[in-house]
């Protein structure tokens, strides 16, 4: 495929919204160019005969290992015992025991 995949401003604006990135029109235009160049490059995968090939999301034959849904106790490492205070300290804006957030309900306006 020659040239650059055509990514419209409308589509890059939609992707920025889905990505939760408030970008200026100038930044969006620059992104559109770069994304177009990468998408054109990856188009070479269409040359491959992928019929019947199972997608591989993960290496090896690992299966998920779930842990018991219980509060961490003395037997677990210190990392598992992070209390609410440690989590609250990381939050950039809080009013313990609450984390501050702007209004959640209503019209989200232009992201």
């Amino acid at each position: 495929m020659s040239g650059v995949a055509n990514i419209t401003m409308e589509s890059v604006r939609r992707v920025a919204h889905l990505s939760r990135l408030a970008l200026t029109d100038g930044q969006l235009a620059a992104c559109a160019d770069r994304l177009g160049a990468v998408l054109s490059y990856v188009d070479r995968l269409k040359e491959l005969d992928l019929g019947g090939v199972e997608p591989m999301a993960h290496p090896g034959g690992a299966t998920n290992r779930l842990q018991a849904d219980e509060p961490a106790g003395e037997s677990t490492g210190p990392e598992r015992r992070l209390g609410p205070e440690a989590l609250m300290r990381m939050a950039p804006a809080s009013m313990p025991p609450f984390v501050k957030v702007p209004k959640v309900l209503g019209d989200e306006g232009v992201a």
Partner: protein
Amino acid sequence: MADTASMTVRELAGAVASRAVSAVEAARVSLDRIASADRSLRAYLQVFEERALARASEIDRRLAGGESAASIGPLAGVPVALKDNLCTGYGRTTCGSRILEKYESPFSATVVRRLEAAGAVVVGKTNLDEFAMGSSCENSAFHCTHNPWDVTRAPGGSSGGSAAAVAARTVPLALGSDTGGSIRQPASLTNLVGLKPTYGRVSRFGLVAFASSLDQVGPLARTVGDAALALGVIAGFDEQDSTSLEALRQGDLDFVRDLERPVAGLRLGVPRQARSPQNHPAVAAALEASIGVYRGLGAEVVEIDLPHLAYGIAAYYIVAPAEASSNLARFDGIRYGRRAETGPGDHLMALYSRSRAEGFGPEVQRRIMLGTYVLSSGYYDAYYLTALRARRLIKRDFDGAFSAEEGMPGVHAVLMPTTAGPAFKIGEKTSDPLAMYLEDIYTVTANLAGIPAVSIPGGFAEKAGTDGQDLPVGMQLLGPAFDEARLLRIARMHEAATRWHERAPGVRG
């Protein structure tokens, strides 16, 4: 004071164990070298002077009290550096990003705890491309790092700070992370040994996630023996990483024991596709020279076919951004990291979108958007599933090469360059993202397939640097999953025969 800076990990650990050198002396030498050499290199984002000296002093006290070095651990008193995407329960963990500029992790990564439990003294945290996305350290939000072999050039990336720190002899060992080549490519550009272990071999708990099906933590060191020792310390099952392999609970973690024993009947495969006209003449020459080295040692070197090698970058730049877009969704301005200012009328969405626009640099934003795009409705099959199918073919290429079945190559390892060229100039590739992405053409396939791969010193591009300096080039060995012990023995055979690793950069410090 003893010249501990030029010692390898194993030499230094031995000197501390025999009390020829104190851990405090070793830490002091490391800190002094950072103070002098790092002015021009800028490999470090943070230095823990006080903490390092206190930890070293504690080790000296234990040794003086009669405790054996063996009981303290194989790295007793060895100064080490950590890539700053590994969480430490002290100092900051920035990932080279404004969004985490002031972030203090409440815990240390499993690999950090294992290093420290083995007696290592963490002296600092090193620079990286923001969230490990890049191949030069130029995407760090703070500053770029310079290559000790030629300060006008990049050290590679994303673990470029760790590579520069070890190459400049500020520490004999550093940890990096490798998602598409981020340990091996900088090792190649700085004359180091850089190992990406098998996926699942080393815990990712406390490594800030970039692409979870590709990321692995590994060592950068000056010798194969040091990398082997470090791997033994950091590897093994970890309950806190759900992708850590349960089978490794009983695994043998001594990668040093048989290191000096050459592999009998060694069979290596050189992919036809890696003898590319794109390779720098010095890289092409180093590949042929390495083949000669192994043949001289009695190995059989055969040409193999990895027909999908050239599709690695295309598959990677769909899979990695897709996973990154999901992993980086956690940076929302609320739970941790940078939070944008909002007014009384602003909605939650404005806080998310502004915090992320202010906090992430341009390359990270582009990769999040690329990942979001390829996962979005209408494109998921065309891009994401296509890439996952190509990934399967890339893995099958390696399975075929390593297969001992009748008619298959049955090689013990694949030999090919780590990068197509030596270190490039800072600024040379920043305007062309695809040129930068292609730095990883020979490295990404190991991540996609989940297999171990090591970059070793492969020779020099003579007078290729600014002012006629020689620049190092790396060779790469790739092996079957969980075959690190043999892979490192194969690497050691090359090292013992060539001694390229003994050459040090002329950095002042």
